[in-house]
């Protein structure tokens, strides 16, 4: 199994490092050809305006939609959450507000409790906010009553940055529960 990490802009290297630690094959995705080689995809943190511009200019956006319809599992973190939401790729029924907490001085870390995973310290950097989630979207974690980690079908979304944490638990969850791939625990 090859997990692609969208590498147009942002902290894709941090996701690749975690996949490497989990002994999973990974590929930096900057072209349609590279995306075609992937069995799953991670859309990293970064600036969603930049990522979206480059996604639509390269036509990678259309291939992500096509592959998602064919069942490709996708994890989106922070900017990735915005890209997957109803205002962009519309692959999960959520509405997301950009920079909802404010500027960098309002960035923070806090403990959140996740179903089946436990408590983790989540890192929110100029984070977006999920302001609406469809009825069939499972909310796996909240922070102060706001959903921050949600799942539906093949799509998993975090408004925080699991790739900046030491623990690989969110990536393990994505690989085992969403992508249904067996990994060494």
């Amino acid at each position, binding site marked *: 199994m090859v997990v692609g990490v969208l590498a147009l802009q942002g902290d894709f290297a941090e996701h690749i490092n975690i996949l490497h630690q989990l002994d999973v094959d990974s590929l930096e995705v*900057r072209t349609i050809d590279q995306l075609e080689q992937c069995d799953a995809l991670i859309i990293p943190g*970064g*600036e969603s*305006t930049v990522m979206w511009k480059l996604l639509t200019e390269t036509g990678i956006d259309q291939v992500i939609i096509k592959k998602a319809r064919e069942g490709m599992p996708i994890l989106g973190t922070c*900017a990735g959450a915005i890209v997957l939401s109803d205002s962009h790729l519309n692959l999960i029924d959520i509405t997301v507000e950009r920079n909802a907490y404010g*500027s960098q001085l309002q960035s*923070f*870390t806090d403990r959140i409790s996740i179903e089946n995973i436990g408590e983790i310290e989540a890192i929110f950097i*100029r984070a977006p906010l999920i302001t609406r989630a469809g009825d069939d979207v499972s909310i796996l974690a909240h922070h102060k009553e706001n959903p921050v980690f949600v799942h539906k079908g093949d799509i998993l979304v975090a408004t925080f940055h699991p790739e900046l944490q030491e623990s690989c638990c969110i990536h393990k969850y994505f690989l085992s529960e969403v992508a249904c791939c067996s990994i060494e625990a």
Partner: protein
Amino acid sequence: MSNQNTLGENLAAMLKGGVIMDVVNAKQARIAENAGACAVMALERVPSDIRRDGGVARMSNPKLIKEIAEAVSIPVMAKVRIGHTAEARVLEALNVDFIDESEVLTPADPFDHIAKSDFKIPFVCGATNLGEGLRRIDEGAAMIRTKGEAGTGNVVEAVRHLKMIKKQIADLKSASKTDRSVFAETERIPVELLDRVLEIGRLPVVTFVAGGIATPADAALMMSLGAEGVFVGSGIFKSEDPAKTAEAIVQATVHFEDAALVAKVSEGLGDAMSGQNIEELETTLASRGW
């Protein structure tokens, strides 16, 4: 290292692979955002104008910074003079995302840089070599950029500084423990910080390049040398077609390994900013700071 400093390093990680563009007003900020900038840098004049006009270059007017922040949704950075703690406090009060303690402005303190660990807001600082970069990190910088030679449209100093940092790390890795201690002492940096750098083989914070990047190919060159992203100052708004040049530099930064694409985006850009030779400069900005 404090939690807030780590948050700043985390924001720097989000900027990676991107282009941060100098802007002097809200209109330019919008052009930069639409072209795909991952952040904008607010300053009162672009470096080539500072060079031409002379005088004291200061932090931008707060009104302009506010207008720029309201015009865009991407992170907003702004420059303060080296050592000017009060300008930095003003920017923090304005709730910008990042502060650049910059040699492009006229230094305010002949003895000390800002004690950046005292701030919640993250700082990026310039460096010409390893010791200088580590002094800034020790003071609390969350991100480093090469100084290059701003406002010249000449990339040679940015290349020099990035290669110098890499070479010094490589040399010290194979040096004796004594030589490492001597380096740390001479450069006034903690041995523990140097040890950490030599263990990971790179600076411990996100490292961009700045100073003299004027064309898409310049950006691709810097990325191929290991830069994690690019600052472009005068190169955009002193070119013939800023919007198109900005887009092309973004494309070349992302797809730096794809020479055909760099060639394609470089076509029909009109004239790049006019450049200057380093030897002919009256003032080198890179020599400001220590």
